[in-house]
């Protein structure tokens, strides 16, 4: 393992978060078994009080997950100097087989925690806490996910060994193959941008429908998650290339660096928020049928959809701006037109 402050901080954060949630499991089980809103018994009152603790903890865990996601990538990039052949975060994450799974699990943990908080928000709007069992059932699923994310991350860091000078001989031949980001890009840039534009168009079309009719939240959520994946693919295949202005540099992480003005944050932040809100919309839709939420759930649903669309639009604008200001020309037909065409197709 490499002994480094950022690594220690990441391990500390993820383990603490996972254990905090794990500590709520016995309570979750007792909610599933004994919850009865109609009762005024002291046990019920105690349980209701405890729910405040759980939601506060989850909010803290979500904030920590988001922050540690950023720190994780940031640190991976910084550590690349420690490994032969690692040029940036991609190389560092490829040092052992746990790197990328760890990143993906962290993202999953972030979305799961935000989904849970959406559920919690909805539940607390219904005077009989209609979703309380669903919520604590979900906690039983969320907890192993957090534990897995923490565990895989631990395995990843434990498996890291810096390529340092050994006293016996030079490390020259220990590995001189460069791990670059080239092979991350599997798609042609034009195709990737097209797919992303298409996905966004679907998101906007479905979003308009939800706004108009109050239906189709689940479809919107699915589209939002697809658009999220498509957008990430587009970042790797095309957008990052425009930022670097080098046709074969496809790294999704380097755009976060200072050399490129940290533009990555302007791309990823709206993207992650948009996807999380889209997910929340998917959670709201079924809740609209619940009697005590007939008023609140559709309102929250619309709000989530609107905010998600706004975030996607922001992402699209940033992406378009990156392409527009780039000196690189990848395709004959200007891709910015493709994007704008697709965006305007969904948004009258």
């Amino acid at each position, binding site marked *: 393992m490499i002994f480094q402050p950022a690594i220690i901080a990441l391990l500390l954060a993820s383990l603490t978060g996972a254990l905090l949630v794990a500590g709520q499991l016995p309570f979750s089980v007792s909610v599933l078994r004994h919850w009865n809103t109609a009762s*005024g018994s002291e046990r019920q009152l105690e349980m209701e009080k405890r729910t405040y603790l759980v939601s506060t903890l989850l909010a803290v865990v979500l904030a920590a997950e988001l922050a540690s996601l950023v720190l994780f990538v940031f640190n991976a990039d910084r550590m690349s100097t420690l490994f032969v052949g690692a040029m940036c975060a991609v190389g560092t994450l490829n040092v052992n087989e746990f790197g990328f799974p760890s990143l993906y699990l962290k993202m999953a943990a972030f979305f799961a925690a935000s989904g849970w908080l959406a559920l919690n928000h909805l539940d607390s709007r219904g005077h009989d806490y209609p979703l309380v069992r669903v919520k604590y059932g979900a906690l039983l699923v969320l907890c192993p996910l957090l534990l897995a994310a923490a565990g895989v991350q631990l395995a990843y860091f434990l498996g890291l060994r810096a390529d340092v000078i050994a006293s016996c001989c030079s490390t020259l031949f220990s590995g001189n193959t460069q791990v670059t980001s080239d092979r991350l890009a599997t798609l042609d840039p034009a195709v990737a941008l097209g797919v992303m534009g298409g996905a966004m168009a679907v998101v906007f079309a479905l979003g308009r429908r939800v706004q108009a009719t109050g239906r189709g939240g689940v479809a919107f959520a699915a589209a939002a998650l697809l658009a999220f994946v498509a957008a990430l693919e587009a970042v790797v295949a095309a957008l990052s290339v425009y930022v670097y202005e080098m046709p074969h540099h496809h790294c999704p992480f380097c755009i976060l660096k200072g050399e490129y003005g940290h533009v990555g944050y302007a791309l990823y932040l709206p993207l992650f928020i948009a996807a999380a809100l889209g997910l929340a919309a998917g959670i709201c839709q079924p809740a609209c049928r619940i009697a005590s939420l007939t008023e609140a759930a559709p309102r929250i649903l619309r709000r989530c959809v609107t905010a998600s669309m706004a975030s996607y639009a922001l992402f699209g604008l940033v992406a378009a701006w990156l392409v527009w200001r780039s000196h690189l020309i990848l395709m004959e037909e200007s891709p910015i037109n493709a994007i704008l065409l697709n965006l305007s197709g969904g948004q009258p």
Partner: protein
Amino acid sequence: MIRLTDVRKAFNQGRENEFWALKGIDLSVEAGKVTVFRGPSGSGKTTLLTLVGCLARPTSGRVRLKDRDISGLPERFLTDIRRSTFGFVFQQFNLLKGITAIENVMIPAYPLGIDRTELSRRAHALLERLDIAPKARSNAEWLSGGEAQRVAIARALINDPEVVIADEPTANLDSERSKQFLDIVETLKESGKTVLMTSHDPLVCETAVVDRVVSLRDGQLVERGG
């Protein structure tokens, strides 16, 4: 406007020192009237007041507020109802020390997100009405008993509630100040508020402004019309 059906309340439930403060209360409180709960200490009158005022939930039985059953509502929603429907004046006045009288008056409105200037205007008007405006900038701990009570009343009225609840309002006041308090109650009644009080002070129970006296003993009603 408030209707209680077979309401019971237990403390330390399931433990050795289990104690039932209320043992089946049926009661209805009319809007626009002044009602007094009377009884010796330990009779359950304060507990009854907390249930009526949505400060607590009954262990069993039903509480209906304007035909809405609120007995099963979690604290989050009870609070919502409480702050828009009830204003409280406590026996010890319970003002926050270290902040001014006017800030004390505004505190119940903070979670509602009312604009600051609007809020402070409203608080000033209330202090004006209760003849305590000159003390608005004094810290709470510098106020005399009567002044503190009037600030507490202003605080109870800041969210313009329909019902004002006062727990032993005259216990810490001399006769002169008690009379002043009852005058205030009268103006509240005139402005259409419902007033609920607990008291064992004869001065309170026997004034003309009181419409009804409800007597309690050992967690049960001993009703006498007023």
